[in-house]
């Protein structure tokens, strides 16, 4: 029996069904942006905004959309919010906009956003859809920022531009470059596997 407000929808996005670690979605922006902590925070916020807004709207109109046009309609709505976010970021923080580059408009084909619209928002009420979007968005943000802390910290010796190691630290450049991204996410998932495995015992 579906409850009117179920907070589990919020918490599941953060760990149990974390979109990145469990559902393996949204990899492109994750790996591309996680080289810098400040960019990652920006990306996380933009992403969460799009996810929450589109979930809400799609949930609101879910009874009026015939089944065979639902995917195009979802895409149009998501694309609209993505464009709004794109131009808002460009207006208020051109540096962030330049750093996020093509990955900001690419949120529209991000599997997480379309996936949640299809799997959840089109079948649940507005409040739960809002919580679902918020949870998934925050779950994504946590992972991308965590990765960025590792990559920027080890790869550049800084976090958000401020040095975190003593003067003579030689940055391990590899971490900031593409191969480093793949490596970090690989080990993160292995870590998740280990934790999950331990729980089973």
């Amino acid at each position, binding site marked *: 029996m579906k409850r009117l407000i179920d907070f589990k929808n919020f918490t599941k996005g953060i760990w149990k069904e974390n979109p990145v670690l469990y559902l393996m979605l949204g990899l492109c922006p994750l790996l591309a942006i996680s080289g810098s902590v400040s960019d990652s925070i920006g990306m996380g916020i933009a992403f969460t905004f799009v996810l929450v807004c589109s979930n809400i709207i799609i949930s609101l109109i879910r009874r009026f959309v*015939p089944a065979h046009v639902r995917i195009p309609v979802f895409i149009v709505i998501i694309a*609209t919010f993505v464009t709004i976010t794109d131009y808002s970021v*460009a207006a208020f923080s051109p540096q962030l906009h330049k750093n996020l580059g093509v990955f900001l408009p690419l949120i529209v084909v991000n599997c997480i956003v379309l996936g949640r619209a299809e799997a959840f928002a089109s079948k649940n009420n507005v409040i739960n859809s809002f919580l679902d979007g918020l949870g998934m968005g925050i779950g994504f943000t946590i992972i991308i920022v965590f990765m960025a802390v590792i990559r920027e910290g080890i790869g550049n010796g800084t976090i958000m531009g401020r040095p975190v190691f003593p003067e003579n630290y030689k940055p391990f*450049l590899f971490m*900031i470059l593409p191969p480093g991204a793949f490596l970090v996410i690989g080990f993160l998932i292995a870590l998740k596997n280990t934790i999950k495995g331990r729980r089973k015992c």
Partner: protein
Amino acid sequence: MKRKEIIGGIIVLFLVTSLCGFLLAEVYKATSPKIEKQKRLEEEKLNKEIFPEGEKFEKVKKGDVEYFVVYDKKKRKIGRIYTIKSLGYGGYIYLKVGIDNNFKIKGVKILQHNETPGLGAKITEDKFLNQFKNIGIENLYLKKDNPKGKIDSITGATISSRAVVNGIRKLMEKIKNEKID
């Protein structure tokens, strides 16, 4: 039955798309002046960093070359700022270079590049760029490329350094005959 469904679906899609298009147009109208202003401010900031005494920067187009003519507060022409691109290690490097009335470099700013972080990316650092101040075309080489050269290349980033140096020198050779009045 099926036809009605399809038409109903198309109507919904059309409505949603039109609404969204309208919404986007409004957002665009609201944000584009701010975006334009940011771009102008950014460009002015860079121009001012190259020519601190410059008060007015006038955009001029001669043939297919665009540049800024710099005027100080007494309305005298004190130099020009060019934007050029030069092929580096990871693609093109875009930079601004200011040239004063004595045909010497006033300053260099890197706009965009795709060089390796930690190595070629160091071309954006003041430590490298300050070397260009007051250099004339005859000394515009890497020390290792030419005895007359006065620019030290970045350790481990010769190609990136050379791209910057050669790019500016090519520009100066091209405009040599159009001396600043």
